[in-house]
């Protein structure tokens, strides 16, 4: 079992200097930008990205070229906003790309900006990423010094610059419209759509929001050609993705693999299997927002294919996180901690999410601390259904302004689906509280 390193190639090949200008230039950095600008065909960049089948790596998996195509043709200025707010629990790939290969991101931003004719890009970096912020700002200065950014880039007549903006601790700012609010100096609360950011985004101007990994892939697509890139992967899940594997595997870490690999090969082949040869109790693919899988053969043999897992199991590949929990773990405790996270991070703008996440957390707290009541599981399901009607599968039924509310009940749906008997048995024996 092997990785297919494209976006993570430099950071593995040059562990001593992958983030520096020298390290980047010595390994092909900015050559694609040079070639793209020399050809002078912005429409071709859009076309190659379209042919590549690239879909957003931030969570929703929306086709990147299609998102770019929504910008109204004659409206300027327009902005590219890079989402480096990575806060989805158990996702740690964008931090790695920022810290270890900021020049690759800058090259991707510049090429994408050229494609969509934008001359000012913003990178919204999660506030806690001090090293990533420092390396990215340094890299931008170095790139500007070489003429890769700024006015008349490499003599092409194209101008583009990048402003780096630090967040300040709020998961919801990863949601693209909350991010734009935050970038405008407001509280990070999502906007009601429409209008979509492509029409009215940052400062009410047409705006594209893309994830760090998405844009870091763009130079490689231009180098390989869109059709060649699309040969990698499976079905509509083309190319490679970085999966952040964490939890009870022997070798947690980021693995860049061709889409279509099975969960089994990722977890046992690359991540070294489960510690002490224990069994998997459950897996949370796609980040905390997704519903869960188990260690069954059916789940382990499933391919890493965004549409397949959604249609077959109602889970998502989301942000590319795969959390693995062995048989020593109490699923109710994990569900409670996730509920606590969502209750804390709810921005409070919609009632079902603001109130509901708090109740889910309270009920799961008593259930996970020996104080549950016999009806608690059904109570949870009913509270959950008030946040996301039906409480079934991804994609969620959403009655809230953003998907955070429905995400918060994925854990409820999952314990009800896989561990209902075990949980009911336990609730019958619990002390109970009069809460």
């Amino acid at each position, binding site marked *: 079992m092997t990785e297919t390193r494209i976006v993570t190639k430099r950071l593995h090949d040059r562990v001593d200097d992958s983030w520096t200008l020298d390290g980047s230039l010595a390994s092909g950095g900015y050559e694609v930008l040079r070639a793209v600008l020399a050809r002078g065909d912005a429409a071709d960049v859009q076309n190659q990205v379209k042919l590549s089948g690239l879909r957003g790596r931030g969570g929703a998996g929306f086709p990147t070229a299609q998102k770019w195509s929504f910008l109204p043709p004659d409206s300027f*200025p327009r902005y590219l906003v890079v989402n480096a707010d*990575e*806060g*989805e*629990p*158990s*996702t*740690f790939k964008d*931090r790695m790309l920022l810290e270890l290969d900021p020049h690759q991101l800058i090259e991707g931003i510049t090429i994408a900006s050229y494609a969509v004719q934008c001359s000012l890009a913003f990178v919204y970096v*999660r*506030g*806690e*990423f*001090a*090293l990533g*912020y*420092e390396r990215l*700002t*340094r890299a*931008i*200065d170095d790139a500007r010094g070489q003429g890769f950014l700024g006015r008349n880039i490499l003599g092409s007549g194209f101008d583009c*610059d*990048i*402003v*780096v*903006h*630090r*967040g*300040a*601790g*709020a998961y919801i700012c990863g949601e693209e419209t909350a991010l734009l609010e*935050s*970038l*405008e*100096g*407001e*509280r*990070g609360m999502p906007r009601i759509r429409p209008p979509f950011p492509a029409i009215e985004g940052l*400062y009410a101007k047409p705006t594209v929001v893309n994830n760090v990994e998405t844009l870091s892939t763009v130079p490689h697509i231009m180098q390989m050609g869109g059709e060649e890139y699309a040969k990698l992967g499976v079905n509509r899940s083309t190319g490679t993705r970085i999966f*952040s*594997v*964490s*939890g*009870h595997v022997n070798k*947690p870490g*980021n693995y860049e693999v061709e889409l279509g690999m099975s969960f089994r090969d990722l977890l046992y082949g690359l991540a070294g299997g489960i510690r002490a040869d224990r069994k998997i109790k459950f897996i*949370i693919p796609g980040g*905390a927002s997704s519903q869960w899988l188990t260690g069954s053969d059916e789940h382990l043999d499933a391919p890493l294919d965004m549409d397949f897992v959604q249609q077959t199991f109602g889970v998502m590949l989301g942000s590319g*996180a795969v*959390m693995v*929990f062995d048989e020593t*773990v109490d699923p109710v*405790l*994990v569900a409670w*901690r*996730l509920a606590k*996270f969502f209750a*804390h*991070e709810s*921005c409070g703008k919609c009632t079902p999410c603001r109130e509901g996440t708090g109740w889910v957390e309270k009920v799961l707290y008593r259930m996970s601390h020996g104080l549950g009541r016999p009806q608690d599981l059904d109570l949870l399901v009913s509270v959950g259904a008030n946040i996301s009607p039906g409480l079934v599968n991804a994609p969620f039924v959403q009655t809230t302004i953003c998907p955070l509310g429905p995400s918060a009940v994925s854990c409820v749906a999952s314990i009800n689906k896989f561990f209902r008997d075990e949980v009911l048995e336990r609730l019958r024996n619990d002390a109970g509280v009069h809460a």
Partner: protein
Amino acid sequence: MSFFDDANLARAKEIVARYPRAKSAILPLAHLAQDQNGWLSQEAMEQIAELTGTTAADVLGTCSFYTMLKRRPCGKLVVSVCTNVTCLVVGGPEVLDHLEHRYAAEPDVTVEEVECLAACGGAPALQVNYEFHERVSPASAEEIVEAYRSGSRRARTVSGASVA
């Protein structure tokens, strides 16, 4: 009286100039204020308002949304311990517990529980003034904090870093 010292005031003006609208500079200026002073005081917010053409109430309204912005004095060292699910199942809460007790009576160290730090590959994880430390135990976490206290380790402050 200026809250920002001369060097930071110059930086603050450069930061405001980066943005098409001055209000966007509220968060970067709040970070700059904290890098200078450790927390975000009323005087800091008043000057940020002046620099961004807003009111102190606007600045408070924005800043009170964000957990990294401290609106009361805190320790010189902020120790942020993750207890989200990956850290939860490999000992994060035990690290938090130990540090909270150890530093309960030491005002120079503020211990806080935080959400996933994007360091789950090295769980359990923590940060000291936003420097990452991974695969910590209660004992090693205390050693790390002590190294910052004694000055043998230093954290970066980043808000004044280069301006686009």
